[in-house]
C-alpha cells in the first residue's frame, strides 16, 4: 500500500478561513473567559481565580447593577416574544394567502425598518416621541387620546418597554420572512385534504398550519434570544452608555460596555468586563442548549 499522500490543496482551501476564524473569533472568546480569572494589581496581571465573579455577584454595588441589567434584559426578551413574534406570524399568515394582491409590495415595505441602523431607529423614535417636537402628542390628540401622552422614553417605569417596542418595530421583518417561507412550503394538498374534512379559514391555521410551522417558530425564538442577550446598539443610540433614566434601560450589553470600556469618571476594567462577558456567554449557551436539546428534539418535523 502506498502511504497516503498529503493533499495540499485541501489545506490551502481551508487555511485562510480557519486562520481568520480562529484568531479573531475563537481565540478571543476563550481568552475573554480566561481574562475573567485575572485582575490588575500594581500594573501587573495577577491570577485571582473566581474573585471577579465573587465581586460581580457578592459585592452589593456590582450585583445590584448585574441583576438589574439581567432583569431588564429578560423583560426586553419577553416583550419580543410576546409582541414581535405574534405580529410577525399574523402578518406572515395574511401575506401567504394565495392570490393576495400587492403581497410583494407589503413585504418589501414592512421589511424596511429591519435594514435601518440602530442609530437611525433610536434617534428617529426619540424625535417622534419627544414632547418638544410634539408629533406623538399631536397625533394622539387627533384621535382623542391626547391626555394619555407621556414622555415614555424619559420615565423610569416606561423607558425600557418603549425601547423594547421600538426594537420590535425594527425587527418584526425577520419572523415575518421566516414564517412566510415556512407557510409557503406547506403543500396545497394538505390544506385541500383539510378542506374536505371541513377545516377552513382560522381553523385551518390553528389546526394545520401552526403545527407545521412550529420548528420555524423555535428557530425564531432562539434567534430572538441570542439577539436580545447580545443587544447594545439601540439602547446606546437612544439613551447613551448610562442607559438612563437611572439605569432603568440598562441591559447586559450596555453594562459590559460601561464596565470594560469606562465612561465619564469610571475607568475601564477589562477583567470585570470579561467576567460580565463570561456571564453573558453562559446565559446564551444555556439558552442555546435548552433550544437544541429540550425544544428542537421534541418538535415533530413533517416530511412532505
Amino acid at each position: 500500500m502506498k502511504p497516503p499522500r498529503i493533499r495540499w490543496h485541501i489545506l490551502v482551501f481551508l487555511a485562510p478561513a480557519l486562520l481568520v476564524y480562529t484568531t479573531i473569533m475563537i481565540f478571543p472568546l476563550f481568552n475573554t473567559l480566561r481574562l475573567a480569572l485575572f485582575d490588575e494589581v500594581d500594573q501587573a496581571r495577577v491570577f485571582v481565580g473566581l474573585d471577579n465573579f465573587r465581586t460581580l455577584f457578592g459585592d452589593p454595588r456590582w450585583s445590584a447593577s448585574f441583576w438589574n441589567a439581567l432583569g431588564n434584559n429578560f423583560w426586553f426578551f419577553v416583550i419580543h416574544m410576546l409582541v414581535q413574534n405574534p405580529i410577525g406570524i399574523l402578518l406572515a399568515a395574511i401575506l401567504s394567502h394565495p392570490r393576495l394582491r400587492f403581497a410583494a409590495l407589503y413585504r418589501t415595505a414592512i421589511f424596511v425598518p429591519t435594514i435601518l441602523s440602530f442609530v437611525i431607529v433610536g434617534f428617529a423614535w426619540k424625535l417622534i416621541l419627544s414632547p418638544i417636537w410634539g408629533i406623538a402628542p399631536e397625533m394622539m390628540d387627533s384621535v382623542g387620546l391626547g391626555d394619555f401622552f407621556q414622555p415614555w422614553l424619559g420615565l423610569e417605569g416606561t423607558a425600557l418597554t418603549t425601547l423594547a417596542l421600538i426594537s420590535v418595530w425594527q425587527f418584526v421583518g425577520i419572523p415575518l420572512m421566516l414564517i412566510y417561507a415556512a407557510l409557503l412550503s406547506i403543500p396545497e394538498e394538505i390544506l385541500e385534504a383539510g378542506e374536505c374534512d371541513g377545516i377552513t379559514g382560522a381553523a385551518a391555521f390553528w389546526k394545520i398550519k401552526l403545527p407545521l410551522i412550529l420548528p420555524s417558530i423555535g428557530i425564531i425564538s432562539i434567534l430572538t434570544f441570542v439577539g436580545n442577550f447580545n443587544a447594545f446598539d439601540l439602547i446606546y443610540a437612544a439613551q447613551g452608555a448610562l442607559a438612563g433614566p437611572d439605569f432603568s434601560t440598562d441591559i447586559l450589553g450596555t453594562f459590559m460596555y460601561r464596565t470594560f470600556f469606562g465612561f465619564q469618571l469610571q475607568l475601564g476594567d477589562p477583567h470585570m468586563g470579561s467576567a460580565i462577558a463570561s456571564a453573558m456567554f453562559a446565559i446564551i449557551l444555556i439558552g442555546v442548549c435548552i433550544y437544541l436539546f429540550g425544544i428542537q428534539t421534541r418538535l415533530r418535523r413533517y416530511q412532505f
Partner: protein
Amino acid sequence: MNKARRNPLNVAAAHGILILYTAIALFPVFVILINSFKSRRAIFREPLALPDADSFSTIGYQTVFNQGDFFLYFQNSLIVTVASLFFVLLFGAMAAFAISEYRFRGNTIMALYLALGIMIPIRIGTVAILELMVNTGLVNTLWALILVYTAQGLPLAVFILSEFMKQVSDDLKNAGRIDGLSEYTIFFRLVLPLVRPAMATVAVFNMIPIWNDLWFPLILAPSESTKTLTLGSQVFIGQFVTDWNAVLSALSMAILPVMVLYVIFSRQLIRGITSGAVK
C-alpha cells in the same frame, strides 16, 4: 378554493391590516425625510406637512456638509463593507469547497468547529479582541473592522455555501479532472460560477449588519479618520442634538445609502431568506 378563502370581507380585512402595518413601518422614515427639507420653524409648526415653497430649506444639509466629514465616513463604511464581504465570500467559499468536496480525516469536526460561530455572537470576545488589536497595532485602522467582520461572517457563509456546493454535479468536476484541470482551477472556473446565487445570498445577509454595526467601530476604530457612517452619524447627532435641522438631515443622509442598497438588492434578500437557506 373554498368560500372562506374568497370572502371579500376577509380580503378587505387582510388589506386593512397590511396597510395599517405598512404605515407604521414607514411612518418614522417618512417623517424624518420630509422634515429634513424644512426650515426650523416649519419643522415645529407643521411636522406632518410636506415641504412647500414657503417652508423648503436645506440649511440642515449645509450644516452637515460643513461640520461633519460625511464623505470620509461614507468611504470608510464602503471600504469596510466591500472588503469584509470579499473576504467572507472568498475564504468562506474555499473552506466550504474543502468540506463539501473532499473526504478527509476531521471533515465533520471541521464543519462543526466552523459552525460554532453561527450561534455564539463574536461580541462576547470583545475584551480580548480589543487587546489583540492593540497588541498588533491594528486598533484605529479599518483592517481591525475588516478582520472582525470577516470572522463574524465566515461561519454562516461556510454553512450555506457548503450546502449549495454539495448540489454541484460530480460529473462536471470529474470531467474537469480528466481534462487535467487542477483542483484550484476546478474550484475557481467550474464551481464558483455555479454557486453564484448562493454567494449573492450570503453577501446580502452580511452586508446590512456590517454596514449598520455600531459596537465594533465604537470600540476598535473610533478615531476621526476611521469612523464609519453609522458611528459618524451617532457622534454627529450627539453633538448637534439641539440643532434639529442638522440632526434630521444627518439621519436622512444615513438612511439614503441603505435604502439605495435595499432597493437594488431587496429581491435577492427576500428570496434568500425565503428560499430556506437558513433553515
